């Protein structure tokens, strides 16, 4: 480029820059014929000046500076192209930092020098028009993925919903009741699950995982592994006789592997994960099935009225083409064993396990019992921030929902055991959602839930009791509570396998494995790859309303893409 112009922005958001020194340093760079500074380049008058200068000085290349190239590049590109240049003839340099004037000036010079270098390397691009395949892939069948699928399908587009477990529903369907309105997911989520299952535009691929992804926005090719269920789902009618006949029991994923007296929380080796499953189809657990472990059994095969059992089934693969992808892979709880101060004991459980104990449709039919002996716990301690907000033992971030679900637990426990006592250890109570603070007040005032402000140092078994040591920082005293059951509000982590999925999708994750949104405030639904959107807890801990909102938001982003027929892809021309 022969005639390059440099435009220096230095509004009050950028540390003071010695513009004279900057101009001096870049003035003699090859090709630079024009330089100007302006206080607020990003505003209309500033942009007008850039446009005029390009025309008046007959510039064939420009370097612009900005506090946030990611946000301003698009705006600048419009101005530059309206002045007759092409996109490749512009580079935006970043000016940012908390340095003093001297460092800021030096950094500005370096940023502009490297932008000039990039501009020199810049080649004309060729744009190709790719027709958009108007079919969407949603990965993860929790509430966020369900919402996204329904919204896209209702708009008239085809949706493939991939879910790694045998049924959609996600974490939400495991919950007992949901805060702050205490409606049960079996009542409020099941309709959405059924709609998803019956929607003509939605195809659910349950018990399946994304194996590989290639392509770009508008046309992704996705390979999906359909795990062997050892049941022909097309023949099966979901009657459930197989799981009645099966003689082998195993700990159930859906019950968070709770081991309750009498094995009441166990499932069979062939099982439908829960009563409201969508699709209502069983899978065989190879690790426990006697046919696979001992080589003989076949009780389910004999019982099946339609001959759907197929022990010879293998994993199969399907390849699909989609125009855009929504990732909604959800969360897992940090394992309890990560907190070494808390012993491993059947009566020290995490929040999801307690949800199963409270759930009216759960293994105990909502009767609260201790896993060790089946007795009703008369004193229960709930511990907030186990692993969250604790960089030393876990993660520094707040998991956002624990304050609310622990108080919900305490309240539901008090309803189930009115003569029991619930204690909640907390650091701060974070109740920012609608109706949340009122919910806490209700638990404290009406249900006499006892809040203790302080952290817990040790949880251990002492004979029949679980002892909890902590401090009450409001009285400055040490506290020891001998309780029957301790419930830990463990930190939320990205779900298992989401890191590997992010690699397959080439999207960025943060240091904890949560998928990174394109901009923390202004692009919360887009991943770092065009055409791939994020919904729910795969992007960070959130509650149900937020997950549903993000699911809907991601769907509408995808639909605005589908409202066009083709997408323009720019590539550097091969010279």
């Amino acid at each position, binding site marked *: 480029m022969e005639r390059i112009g440099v435009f220096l922005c230095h509004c009050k958001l950028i540390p003071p820059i010695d513009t004279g020194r900057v101009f001096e340093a870049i003035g003699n760079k090859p090709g630079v014929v024009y330089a100007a500074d302006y206080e607020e380049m990003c505003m209309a008058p500033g942009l007008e000046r850039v446009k005029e200068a390009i025309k008046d000085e007959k510039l064939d290349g420009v370097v612009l500076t900005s506090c946030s190239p990611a946000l301003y590049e698009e705006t600048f590109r419009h101005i530059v192209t309206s002045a007759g240049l092409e996109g490749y003839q512009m580079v935006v340099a970043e000016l940012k930092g908390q340095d003093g004037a001297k460092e800021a000036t030096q950094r500005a010079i370096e940023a502009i020098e490297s932008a000039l270098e990039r501009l020199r390397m810049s080649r004309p691009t060729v744009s190709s028009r790719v027709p958009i395949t108007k079919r969407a892939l949603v990965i993860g069948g929790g509430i966020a993925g369900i919402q996204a699928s329904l919204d896209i399908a209702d708009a008239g587009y085809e949706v493939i919903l991939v879910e790694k477990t045998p049924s959609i529903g996600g974490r939400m369907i495991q919950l007992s009741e949901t805060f702050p309105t205490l409606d049960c997911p079996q009542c409020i989520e099941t309709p959405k699950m059924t709609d998803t299952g019956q929607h003509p535009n939605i195809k659910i691929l349950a018990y399946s995982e994304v194996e590989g992804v290639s392509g770009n926005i508008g046309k992704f090719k996705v390979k999906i592994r359909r795990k062997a269920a050892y049941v022909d789902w097309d023949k099966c009618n979901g009657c459930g006789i197989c799981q009645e006949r099966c003689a082998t029991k195993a700990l159930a994923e859906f019950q968070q592997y709770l081991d309750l007296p009498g094995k009441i929380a166990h499932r069979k080796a062939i099982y439908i994960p829960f009563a409201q499953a969508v699709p209502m189809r069983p899978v065989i657990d190879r690790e426990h099935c006697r046919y696979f472990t001992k080589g003989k059994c076949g009780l389910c095969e004999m019982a099946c009225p339609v001959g759907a059992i197929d022990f010879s089934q293998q994993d199969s693969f399907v390849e699909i083409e989609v125009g855009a992808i929504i990732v909604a892979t959800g969360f897992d709880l940090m394992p309890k064993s990560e907190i*070494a*101060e808390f*012993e491993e004991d059947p009566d020290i459980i995490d929040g999801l396990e307690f949800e199963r104990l409270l759930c009216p449709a759960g293994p105990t039919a909502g009767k609260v019992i201790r896993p060790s002996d089946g007795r009703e716990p008369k004193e229960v301690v709930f511990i907030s921030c186990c692993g969250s907000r604790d960089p030393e033992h876990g993660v520094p971030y707040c998991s956002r929902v624990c304050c609310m679900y622990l108080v919900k637990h305490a309240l539901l426990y008090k309803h189930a055991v009115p003569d029991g006592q619930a204690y909640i250890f907390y650091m701060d109570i974070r109740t920012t959602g609608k109706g949340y603070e009122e919910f806490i007040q209700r638990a404290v005032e009406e249900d006499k839930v006892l809040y203790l402000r302080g952290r817990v140092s*040790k949880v*251990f*078994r002492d004979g029949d009791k679980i*002892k909890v040591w902590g401090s009450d920082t409001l009285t400055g005293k040490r506290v020891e509570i001998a309780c029957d059951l301790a419930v830990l509000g463990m930190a939320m982590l990205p779900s298992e396998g989401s890191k590997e999925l992010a690699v397959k999708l080439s999207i960025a994750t943060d240091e904890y494995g949560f998928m990174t949104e394109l901009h923390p405030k202004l692009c919360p639904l887009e991943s770092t790859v065009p055409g791939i959107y994020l919904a729910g807890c795969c992007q960070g801990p959130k509650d149900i309303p937020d997950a549903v909102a993000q699911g809907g938001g991601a769907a509408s982003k995808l639909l605005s893409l589908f409202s066009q027929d083709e997408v323009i892809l720019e590539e550097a021309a091969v010279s």
Partner: protein
Amino acid sequence: MNLSYYPGCTLKTKAKNLEDSAVASMAALGVNLVELPRWNCCGTVYSFAEDEELHQLAPVRNLIRVKEVESNKVVTICSFCYNTLKRANLLITNDPEKRNTLNTFMEEEIDYNGEVEVVHLLEVLRDEVGWQSISQKVQLPLKGLKVAPYYGCTLLRPQAVAIDNVERPTIMHDLLQALGAEVVDFPFATECCGSYQILSNPDFVSHCVWDILSSALRWGAEAVALSCPMCDFNLGQKQKELRQTHSGFKGIPILYFTQLLALSLGLDPEVCRFELNYVDPRPLLESKGLLRQ
């Protein structure tokens, strides 16, 4: 294998049973503990004072002794000495300013810049000898002896000097298991024994000791194993008083892990110096067939 060995004051006086059983056991395992020349007190307690340089002279001098014998590692047996030496060493390594002050102050000594590694005997057993080779050398497995490992504070805190997981250590469990004992893990294994509060607040120490011992007993322990002479003093010496204040408490022998090591390696029980233990462990060991009557 020769290892430089820092005994510390207590091992030469009240805890002779710890030193003798340790040195003899290590010799049987092929490790020769070579006592440092001209060692002095370790400084006993790591100082929390901000102006602490003077307090660091004692531990650093000992580390200089190690450097002088051209050794890059020193092993301690007393947990307190371990803690003080290790932390002083960390300070010297991480704080160039204080290192400079100390070196300048001790102008008669050679300069010390953190060249020596401080290890505890348990680490040597785990990392250099290995549990498997120990269990192969066991002559008299401690079969049927229910021992609770007790760590106290100084082997594990602060985290920077911990010889194992701070909250859930297993190093002594693994050793006792290698010796054939029935290991009893109990929740108070890492709680404080009360330490030097025994001087100013003896009732508080009684409270701590009772919590620890009653918990060990509830979990089925017949004896407690430890490595710290301070803990040994509190856990052992306080039992006389606890027998009077807690009806039904009959006492529980406290042993150094090295005494159990020596016994199981088939060494002459004389090296264990059981007569120095505050609660005589011999009746228990005899009842398990681990000592000739």
